[in-house]
């Protein structure tokens, strides 16, 4: 399971960075989404994966048993997913607006900010 996740995370990072390096705006956003998912999986992986051991203290016990799944990474991932969802929604609207105004999808064509007034 860990090995599979490691490979998937590597692929997600690689694909994300590759997509970001393309000139198209849409691919830029896709790259960012892939990278974000890679990072979320990385948190999950590094939080030590444990199968079927919820972190719940039983009614007759005072503390957790020996092995339990760490709930913190899941909380972190949930937060990160919500945040990246919001940011990606904004970014998608932004590229749509930019496409309407600049009339191109090509990042190389966007040089108005470098022009000398």
């Amino acid at each position, binding site marked *: 399971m860990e090995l599979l996740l490691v490979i998937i995370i590597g692929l997600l990072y690689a694909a*994300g960075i590759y997509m*970001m390096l393309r000139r198209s*705006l849409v691919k*830029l956003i896709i790259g*960012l989404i892939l*990278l*974000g998912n*890679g*990072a*979320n999986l*990385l*948190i999950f*992986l*590094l*939080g*030590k994966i444990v199968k079927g051991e919820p972190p719940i203290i039983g009614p007759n016990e005072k503390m957790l048993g020996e092995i339990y799944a*760490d709930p*913190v*990474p899941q909380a*972190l991932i949930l*937060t*990160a997913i919500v*945040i990246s969802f*919001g*940011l990606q929604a*904004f*970014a998608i609207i*932004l*590229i749509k*607006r*930019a496409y309407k*105004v*600049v009339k191109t999808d090509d*990042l190389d064509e*966007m*040089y*108005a*900010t*470098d022009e*000398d*007034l």
Partner: protein
Amino acid sequence: MSNPYIVLPVIFQLFVAVTLMFSWTNKNLQKLISVVGSLIALLISISLLIKVNQEGIQTMQAGGWIAPFGITFVADTFSALLVLLTAISGLAVSVFSVGSIRNARVRFGYFPILHLLIMGLSGAFLTGDIFNLYVWFEIIIISSFVLITIGGEKAQLEGAIKYVAMNLLASVVFLTAIAILYGLTGSLNMADLSLQVAKVENRGLVNVTAILFLVGFGIKSAVFPLYFWLPASYHTPPPAISAIFGGLLTKVGVYAMLRVFTLIFVPDTFLSSVITVMAMLTIFSGGVGALMQNNIRKVFSYLIICHIGFMLAGLGIYSTLALAGAVFYLVHDIVVKTNLFMVSGLIFKIKGTYSMRLLGGFYKEQPLMSLLMAIPLFSLVGIPPLSGFWGKLLLIQGAMDSSNILLIGFILLGSFLTLFIIAKLWSEVFWKDPQILPKKEHIKYFDELKPLKKRAMLASVVFLSILSLGIGFGAEWVMRIAMTVAENLMDPSAYIQAVLGT
């Protein structure tokens, strides 16, 4: 010492933002609420700094979860100082916006977003939890995305795309670093991390994580190989928005670096030499970049980069004196850069252009206002006894003590480049013979504005100019605070004890 009121600067800004949303349709009421709210926020943060100075580090454990399990908020002198500076910049920009922001932008929620941005900044300065810092960073960037695009002009959207892409990338790198750090130590509390990271045996992995943090914060604070988004975007939004960006957004990256690289990762020789080299190249490329520009706002954008290098140099030298220099420079830079972008806004409102080639004769037409503008410009250069001088003095002393001659050379080069650029800007904009500029239809010129708006714009520039004169002439007090901050950064045991209570 536990004190639940330290989150008040954050909560209060949220309260102001929500109140502003309830008066969405009433523009004048929004302006009033924003200015009054910023004033109260300033008073709150002054009282926080006084309290921290008198009673030592204040902490707040969110939800009553004891550290290191819950989210901790910590106000030490450094945090409280930066919260105060945020409130000062926030007040100045809020007053300036009353005069300079168009009604169309106010209708799209400019003021609520401005206060949410300031809320995010205060939160980032006060938090003591690394993941919580990430969340505050996201609040800051989403607010800044809205501010940079509000109005939707072509240049704004193009600048925004570069800005958004790089900031999202920085967030992912930061998140990756947090993931690895959590995997290494199993903790997110910064004070606890300080103890845990020291215990990790795999130093190679610790260094990799440190470099990931350096890249993440480096993109946000625009250091050498990662700064290209800044001059491509900071000159596109209206001047009030550039002012808050130029004053505070890159500085929050510097704050995070100063915090993380003194508390969690204590720089070894490798890391401090990487930071020093980055600082030197940042100073150089920012200075040389500013030489080439014609748009005054782009000149200031490159100067931001140049001066970020000074603060990074303080971290690279890593001694009490040098860190005090970096903190002093940070204080000076927040005030002056906010002011300079507002000055550029005033020049634009009067002349209708940002181009140095077209501008001219400003001193002849507006002698008093030119003298006012001279204060931030020459403070930036650091002519003694103005505020930019003292920070650099401390930095050079610190570099002397560690006998880093090359770094001293770059700091001096950066200062000379700044002097040259400001002298060029002064002679082009203020002394050159004026040219007849065609009146542009879409610009509302300064003379056509209502007296209240004129006064609002001038008042905020006067306020910050007096403050930077105060920092220059009252350098002893600021230096005492900066030394306290630097001592706490060099020896974080008080911070750790305040948070963990052991």
